[in-house]
């Protein structure tokens, strides 16, 4: 009989914090600068440079720890993790091994069998590495230290997950918590959230864990799901063949749907951690914890509850809108301006979701401003434009956040409410389509639809269809 296996998964999640500056120097963390333009002696490892800790990093790490039910380490320290690689300018990374800032927390996830706790072993603060780019012309690598020293927290879970679904539920939960705290935007594709998967398999019922491997380079939920399936099969195949799983780090190649070992004889994996003598310890008092707690913004469950009380919109809409901090922010800002929660929710639930899906974007990528959405809603309310035109304008706004009022004026999309002009156009349409007029008079009601269409076409869409219909009937019946 075939043996049954259980997958045991723990996650190491790296999150780039949303600070303005790097963890140990006053360089900007902004994305998109030309290579090495966001660097200084500290983050390029120049001789004689020294690190000074960014206070905001500690507060973000504390906030995430508190929101994930962790104990805050009152006396924490930084350690050096020594390894040579060109993206690591000092050839040691400043991290925390011995006294990480948070320990022993958990988050609740929803699974098919109900709610489940995933333990958090620890959260520690550390610095990000630079970026290596391959140069085809010279077959060399090029190093850009703009990301070097960007603050990270690493959230290390317990090996509590048993499937890809649980892993993704856990990641989504973490992402929401962190986004709501404003501690990071947590974009997997852009690397501001990265997950390494520690996976082992064991026979169902076994007490001991199997030997685990660590998989890196997973930059989408799909890649994570596929890598888990792939690694599970690989380990089971090894065990079935009577071979042993080797504890190692493997790199997932999502295009080839396979992983390979990253070992080299030059990598000893002996990081020689020791307390960094250039940094002083961090002491976190009760008062400081209370202060950070006090500043904690409204989290998702609180927000959902409030929406239910304040806005008359369906539960499903609340679920979707609060499922992204960014979307919820737009919703609230827009409602604050136009006071039309139902209309705002509608635009988000229908047109926004449609375009996001079509363009394969995340809610985090929404670029239009709440001000402009409010203006668009105002334009339709005041019947300045009709709903068809409004959808067209929205598409443009979705892409480039144009001001809908200006856009409608520039493009001349205003609904024509001048009855004289409309009457004149309808008279021309009636004159040009005697057959349809005849059909209508003979009781073919469908003919009126054709005549409305012709009128809208002649008005270049800028008429209110209800008014066209009424006036047409009046003229035909007279």
């Amino acid at each position, binding site marked *: 009989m075939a043996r049954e296996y259980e997958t045991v998964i723990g996650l190491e999640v790296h999150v780039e914090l949303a600070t303005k500056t790097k963890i140990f120097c006053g360089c900007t963390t902004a994305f998109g600068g*030309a*290579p*090495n333009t966001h660097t200084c002696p500290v983050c390029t490892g120049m001789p004689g440079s020294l690190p*000074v*800790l960014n*206070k905001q990093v500690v507060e973000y790490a504390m906030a995430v720890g508190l929101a994930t039910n962790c104990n805050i380490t009152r006396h924490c320290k930084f350690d050096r993790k020594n390894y040579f690689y060109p993206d690591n300018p000092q050839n040691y990374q400043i991290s925390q091994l011995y006294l990480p800032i948070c320990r022993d927390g958990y988050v609740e996830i929803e699974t098919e069998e109900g709610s489940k706790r995933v333990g958090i072993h620890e959260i520690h603060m550390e610095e990000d590495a630079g970026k290596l780019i391959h140069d085809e012309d*010279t077959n060399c*690598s*090029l190093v850009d230290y703009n990301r070097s020293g960007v603050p990270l927290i690493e959230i290390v879970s317990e090996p509590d997950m048993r499937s890809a679904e649980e892993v993704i539920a856990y990641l989504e939960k973490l992402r929401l918590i962190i986004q709501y705290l404003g501690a990071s935007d947590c974009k997997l594709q852009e690397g501001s959230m990265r997950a390494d998967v520690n996976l082992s398999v064991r026979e169902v019922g076994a007490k001991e864990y199997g030997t685990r491997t660590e998989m890196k380079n997973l930059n989408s939920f799909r890649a994570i799901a596929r890598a888990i399936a792939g690694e599970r099969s690989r380990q089971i195949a090894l065990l079935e063949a009577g071979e042993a799983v080797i504890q190692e780090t493997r790199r997932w190649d999502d295009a080839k749907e396979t992983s390979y070992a990253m070992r080299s004889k030059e990598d000893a994996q002996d990081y*020689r951690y020791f307390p960094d003598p250039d940094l002083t310890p961090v002491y976190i008092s009760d008062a400081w914890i209370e202060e950070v707690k006090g500043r904690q913004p409204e989290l998702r469950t609180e927000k959902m509850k409030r929406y239910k009380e304040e806005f008359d919109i369906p539960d499903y809409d609340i679920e979707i809108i609060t499922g992204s901090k960014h979307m919820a922010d737009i919703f609230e800002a827009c409602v604050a301006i136009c006071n039309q929660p139902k209309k705002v929710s509608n635009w988000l639930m229908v047109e926004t979701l449609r375009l996001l899906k079509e363009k394969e974007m995340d809610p985090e990528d929404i670029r239009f401003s709440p001000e402009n959405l409010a203006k668009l809603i105002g334009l339709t309310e005041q019947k300045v434009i009709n709903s068809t035109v409004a959808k067209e304008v929205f598409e443009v706004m979705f892409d480039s956040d144009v001001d809908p009022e200006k856009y409608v004026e520039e493009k001349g999309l205003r609904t024509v409410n001048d009855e004289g002009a409309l009457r004149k156009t309808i008279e021309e349409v009636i004159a040009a389509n005697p057959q349809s007029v005849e059909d209508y008079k003979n009781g073919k009601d469908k003919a009126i639809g054709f005549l409305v269409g012709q009128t809208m076409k002649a008005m270049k869409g800028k008429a209110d269809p209800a008014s066209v219909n009424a006036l047409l009937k009046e003229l035909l019946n007279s």
Partner: protein
Amino acid sequence: MANIIDDATIDYVGILAKLALSDEEKEQAKKDMGRMLDYIDKLGELDTEGVEPMTHLFPVQNVFREDVVTNGDDRDSMLKNAPGEKNGMFVVPKTIG
């Protein structure tokens, strides 16, 4: 000599420290390291039961920077000493992966 450093250890330390030693240097390093370790072993005589390791001399803590950008673009200075530079980046031999 109480501490005998073997070839494997010297090679391992060479990987950690990123140093390539000639055979002659290796032999010397084995002797030097063994002798130094014998000497350091003297610390074993000290009773340090219950003593906290002293990583920092003074009880100074919470030395922070505020989260304010203070540095501008100083790329030319950072790259000025680079052994290899291209397109505003540091050139290194090809990395794996």
